[in-house]
């Protein structure tokens, strides 16, 4: 998204990792998330939350990320978009 700040992006990635949409970053290698994985994760999150699947961290998506919620992840490892891609 054109108006997305680095902080918003970091927040979004953290959120997606926390709730099962992205695998957590590897603390040893410091591996970064790919743009493709990020887009898929955002789409999965939007679908789960009942939003339009744009794959973009827009205001509505960021708003949903700020909604109070349960700490448990929404997707298990086998359900995450990235795992499906690997398989």
């Amino acid at each position: 998204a054109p108006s997305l700040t680095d902080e918003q992006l970091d927040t979004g990635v953290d959120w997606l990792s926390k709730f099962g949409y992205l695998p957590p970053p590897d603390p040893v290698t410091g591996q970064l998330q790919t743009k493709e994985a990020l887009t898929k994760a955002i789409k999965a999150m939007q679908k789960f939350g009942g939003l339009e699947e744009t794959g973009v961290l827009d205001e509505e998506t960021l708003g949903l990320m700020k909604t109070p919620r349960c700490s448990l992840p929404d997707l298990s490892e086998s359900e995450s978009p990235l795992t499906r891609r690997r398989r």
Partner: protein
Amino acid sequence: APPSQSKWSKRHLSWRIRTFPKESHLLGRDTVRALMYYALKVWSDIAPLDFHEVAGNQADIQIDFTKADHNDGYPFDGPGGTVAHAFYPGDRLTAGDSHFDDDEAWTFRSPDAHGMDLFAVAVHEFGHAIGLAHTSAVESIMRPYYQGPVGDPLKYHLPYEDKVRVWQLYGVRDSVSHTAQPNTSRGTDPPVLLDLPENRSAVLPERDAPNRCTTHFDAVAQIRGEAFFFKGKYFWRLTREKQLVSLRPVPIHRFWRGLPTFLDSVDAVYERPGDHRIVFFKGLKYWVFKDNNVEEGYPRPISDFGLPTDGVDAAFVWPHNDKTYFFKDGRYWRYDDYVHRMDLGYPKDSTLWKGVPPQLDDAMRWSDGASYFFKGAEYWRVAGSGMEVEDGYPRPIGKDWLVCADMLSDSPAPETNGTETHPRGRHRASHAGSNYEVCSCTS
């Protein structure tokens, strides 16, 4: 992460609130307990699960109000953000445990904007605690996002989506129709005051509560040295000193946790010698309790005892030989609870117990070494190892045991030969002309 499928292998689950919200001015402890009780009941109303509150650290579902990092891998993050979580069923110590962020402003009966509705969140978390994962279904309490209050806890019904998911795990509870239409009235009624389950003094007797002075009892038992008189869905309790604990009867299900809620009476009750488990009989089934919680695997058929297939009238342990005696109509059986076997040569004719009437309501041992037999409004006493009713019996149960005034009985007063047959409550004359005396209890 949510496992593909996890569920409890047992059906009776204990719970306990280990830590309460610090900001208790928002929600009192009693209210928090009541809300947890009702949030669990939402699930046990439709699935064959039973939840009972316990003390100590052995509860299956430990509930905590905690904040920030509390060493479980799911740190809280202050107001908003993540508000609660629960652990799925399993073998780990934390399985079933439910944590609520103590930094949230937990509320009950408040508009959405003024805090986080504890009941709504608790229903969601207990869904996890019994094995449900998040879902994206719009009409589900298991959506991960907080959706505001869900209305009166006493009237709340799960969305159909959630019912189906929990039925897939545990099946359908008896008396629940799984073809019922989805409930659409959720949240439309204003919340009403809770009937707090723990606030016994505030709970008025039900309209169907029997009169202890005129009723005929279903079962009588000595349990942990105290006397319990059961009638319908209620019981009265007497201390070891034979003092009535309360004039009001207590609903059986409020104390004996795990009996089916539809059970409207019991036939006989006794405390098992040896392991001191408590056994309840109703019809062709029996339940075994450890303290006041039912054990796993019950009910079971009374044929386990070698008993006939038409139930039992009475069960008691004779102090003389520590054997368990069962009575039905005009016969009795002797059972050895230590070797789990009926003694040979039984049943015998109950007339061998001279003076004891047939078709008893129940019988019990008592701390004076005697055995007591109950039928109708009267009871009979058999002393020591004898098998013959003492002179002066039958006597009225209400007057001698349950602090009732003189009844329609002209039986002579029992002899006081060193054994106690009168209630020892300190009586004052009734000034109200009611049918009971005022009893001053010291315990």
